[in-house]
């Protein structure tokens, strides 16, 4: 990549006033650092991935409304976690976390367990029980 070819497209980085370092050659073929504000090709890739997360979240919301999944699934996904990450934050085994994603099991959970989830998501118990979805 030549220095004058370093892409300067708009991206989520440029919106936050961040530029990233890439390596490129100057006219004499010498390597050095160059700053890039973003590149359309990778912005497309990133947006594709974010769209998928959003799509997944909408599906989950639907399933919560239908009484299949618990609010834990909603907060987990909206904070971009999966069962492995959430299990780490609440200090509960993964297989138990998986169970807690079901609406039926969620209803039977005690205050102590619910509190762990509320703390991990940094929300109140009230918000955990009645998510605004």
């Amino acid at each position, binding site marked *: *990549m030549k220095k004058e070819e370093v892409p300067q497209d708009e991206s*989520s*980085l440029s*919106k*936050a006033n*961040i*530029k*990233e*370092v*890439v*390596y*490129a*050659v100057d006219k004499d*073929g*010498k*390597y*050095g*650092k160059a*700053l*890039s504000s973003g*590149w*359309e*090709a*990778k912005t*497309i*890739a*990133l947006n*594709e*991935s*974010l769209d*998928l*997360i959003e799509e*997944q979240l909408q599906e989950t919301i639907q399933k919560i409304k239908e009484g299949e999944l618990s609010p834990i699934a909603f907060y987990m996904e909206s*904070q*971009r*976690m*999966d069962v*492995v*990450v959430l299990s*780490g*934050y609440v200090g509960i085994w993964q297989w138990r976390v998986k169970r807690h994603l079901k609406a039926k099991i969620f209803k039977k959970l005690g205050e102590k367990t619910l509190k762990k989830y509320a703390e991990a998501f940094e929300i109140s118990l009230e918000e955990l029980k009645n998510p605004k979805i």
Partner: protein
Amino acid sequence: MKINFEHNQSAHCENGVVSNLLNYNGLQVSEPMVFGIASGVFFIYIPFVKVNFAPMFSFRPVPGFIFSRVSKRLGFKIKRHKFKSKEKAQQVLDAELSKNNPVGLQVGVYNLTYFPDEYRFHFNAHNLVVYGKDGDNYLISDPVMQDVTTLSAKELEKVRFAKGPFAPNGHIYYPTELPNQIDLKKAITKGIKQAYRHMLAPVPVVGYRGIRYVAKRIRKWPDKIGVKKTNHYLGQLVRMQEEIGTGGGGFRFIFAAFLQEASVIMENPRLAELSEEMTAIGDQWRDFAIDASRLYKNRSRETDAYNKIADKLDAIGLAEKAFFLDLKKAIK
């Protein structure tokens, strides 16, 4: 309290932390040099590990390898601590700072307040340097950022104790016992040798074979898993290749920069020629990314489009094979 630490923005966080910490300790080593000595150039495809609903592709070694390989090859030691207790983690950090010792920290990205929202994922192998404390605020040198920044004690504790895969557990590290003289030539040779060994490894999912294997899969994916999933998988590949921290082209440009620098130190003009070849390969990777992004933007349904992009990736695999065989000859 502020340590007189020089912040240099870098492409990749781990290279950057290593390079900046060594510079502070009187050892001038550039980011590409760190990357090359650590044999940072790599490729692996792990189909059974799913990240964000897509298989894992990686253009770099496992986090942490860069620092440990550099320390081994340049002959210095690293002191590392991990903690169960958050209080203890902060005490040790404060103690090192008061000794005028800037330290590297492994942190989770999700709660880094200065990152844009789109980049906040639960990725726990990010690295930064703490070089001082001002009241309740820690002075932060994050190598991928242009300027230094700060985090409150609470914010720093949160990212040091992020949870999930690669959980940092407060991981703090710094170089100790730096040698008076380093043998850069020997370190470079070792770095290059391991790089071509890995890239030419007789393992189907590693190195140039891994790249060609993925090319083969791309031809089958549209029929097997559908166009939508195929596009998502390609998106994942492009993100791993080009995302912040790679220096562009799946780290290939950093490696080319390393070869150019190494050519002078080793007095080996062949390495400079190979640097140019690696630049051309990096450009091929960029080309591939453009084509892939067009595919999922236009939601193309013709399978021929996937064959074409697979051809391109296969050509990259073959180019890397030829390149690393030449590199092997050049270093003898």
